C-alpha cells in the first residue's frame, strides 16, 4: 500500500516537492472515503480540512431557494478541494457532495498552518503550490461569469 506522501506526490499541485516536505505535510493527512451522495463539506461549517482527490468526483454546490442545489464546479482526480482553511474566518463556502465513491486524502488545516508557522520554508512552498490553483480557479470563475456560450455573436 502506498503511503500518504507517495499518494500526495502524484497530485499535480504537489509534484516535484522534496520528500522531506512531503513527509511533513503527509503527517497532517489521512485517507478518507465518501459514498455517493455523501457531503464532504457543508457550507458554513468550520473549515479545518482540505482534500486532495484520489478518485471520484466532487460537486461544489450552492443552494438556491426555489431552484434547489446548483452545481457550480466539479473537481476530479488529483485536484484540491477547499481553501477556506487558509483564511479567517475559516468557514466552508460551498457544499461539496460526492458523485460516486470518492477516495481522498484529508488534511488537517490547523496542523498544516501550525507546521507552516514553525517552518516558513515549508509554508512558502505550500503557498507557491496552492496559490496557482486559486488563481486558476479565479480565472475560470471570471470566464464562467462571461457566460461565453450565451453571449453576443458576430462582430
Amino acid at each position, binding site marked *: 500500500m502506498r503511503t500518504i506522501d507517495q499518494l500526495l506526490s502524484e497530485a499535480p499541485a504537489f509534484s516535484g516537492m522534496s520528500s522531506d516536505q512531503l513527509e511533513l505535510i503527509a503527517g497532517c493527512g489521512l485517507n478518507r472515503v465518501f459514498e455517493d451522495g455523501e457531503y464532504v463539506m457543508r457550507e458554513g461549517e468550520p473549515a479545518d480540512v482540505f482534500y486532495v482527490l484520489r478518485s471520484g*468526483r466532487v460537486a461544489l454546490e450552492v443552494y438556491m431557494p426555489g431552484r*434547489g442545489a*446548483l*452545481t457550480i464546479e466539479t473537481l476530479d482526480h488529483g485536484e484540491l478541494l477547499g481553501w477556506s482553511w487558509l483564511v479567517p474566518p475559516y468557514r466552508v463556502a460551498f457544499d461539496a457532495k460526492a458523485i460516486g465513491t470518492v477516495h481522498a486524502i484529508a488534511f488537517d488545516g490547523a496542523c498544516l498552518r501550525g507546521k507552516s508557522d514553525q517552518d516558513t520554508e515549508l509554508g512558502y512552498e505550500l503557498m507557491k503550490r496552492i496559490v496557482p490553483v486559486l488563481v486558476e480557479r479565479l480565472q*475560470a470563475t471570471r470566464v464562467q461569469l462571461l457566460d*461565453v456560450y450565451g453571449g453576443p455573436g458576430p462582430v
Partner: protein
Amino acid sequence: MTAAGTDSAVLEPTTPVAYRVAGKRKEMGDTWTLELEPVGDQRLPGFLPGQFSMLYAFGSGEVPISVSAIAGGSGELTHTVRAVGAATGAICDARPGDQLGVRGPFGSVWPLDAAEGGDVVVVAGGIGLAPLRPAIEQLIAERDRYRAVTVLCGARSPDEMLYPSELQDWREAGIAVETTVDSATGDWEGRVGLVTKLIPLAPFQGERATAFVCGPEIMMRFVAAELRGRGIPPGRIHVSLERNMQCAVGHCGHCQLAHLFVCRDGPVFALDRVEPLLGVREL
C-alpha cells in the same frame, strides 16, 4: 467528396436557389435542425465540413449558417440554427413545406486530410458543435486514418448540450467524448466547469495533434491558449470565425478582418493567421 449538384455550373453564387423545409427537429429551447430539399431541378453543389450557406428567410433577411451534416449527394442540406434575431428567428419558425432561399457552398473547410496520421482534438462550445458535426462524422467514417480522436464539448447547462444522443453514438464509435457545463441542477453527474479544463485530461500528444475549435470567440481564445500550452503549434489549431456577412463572395467587405475576408478566406482559419486579430476591439 464531389459536388452533388447537376446544375451547379450554371448557378450564380449571388442568386439564391429555392429550397423547401423537408424536416425540422427541435434540438433545445431556441435551436432547431432543418432538413432542406431543392424545390425545383436546381440544387447547390455538395458542401464540405466547415463550409456555410447563406440562408434567406423571405422578408426577414439572409444569414450565414454552417452545414451541420453532409447529405452524401442527395441534394439535401442540413442546418442547425439558433434563433437570436430577425433572420435566424424566421428560419427557426419555418414549417415543413415553407421555402427558404439558399446560396453556397461558401468558405474554407476543416482540414481533415492535413490531420491524417496524428491525434485529433475537436473542441466545441455551445452551438459551435453544429459546424463541427460533419467533421466528427467524417473522422468516425475514416477512423483508421487518425490516431486518438477526442471531442470536448462545453455548454451553458445540461439542457443546452447539443446533440446529446449523438455524443453517446460517437463514444460507441470509438472516439473519446467529454462534456462539461457552466452550471447544473438536478441529477447531472458530469463535469461542471470550463471546457478548457477538459484539455489537460485529453489523450493527445501536442506535437502530432491537430485541433478544430468552434464556439464563441472568447471561448476559442481561452481554448487556443490551453491547446498551445499542450504543445499544439498554432498552425495546427483551426478555428471557425463569425463575422456579419452580406455577399459571402468577397465583394462587399462586410466580413473583413484586417486583410482577410472571413467569407472567402475563412471561416475556418489556422490560428497563426488570425491570432493577432482575435479580441481586437474595433475592426
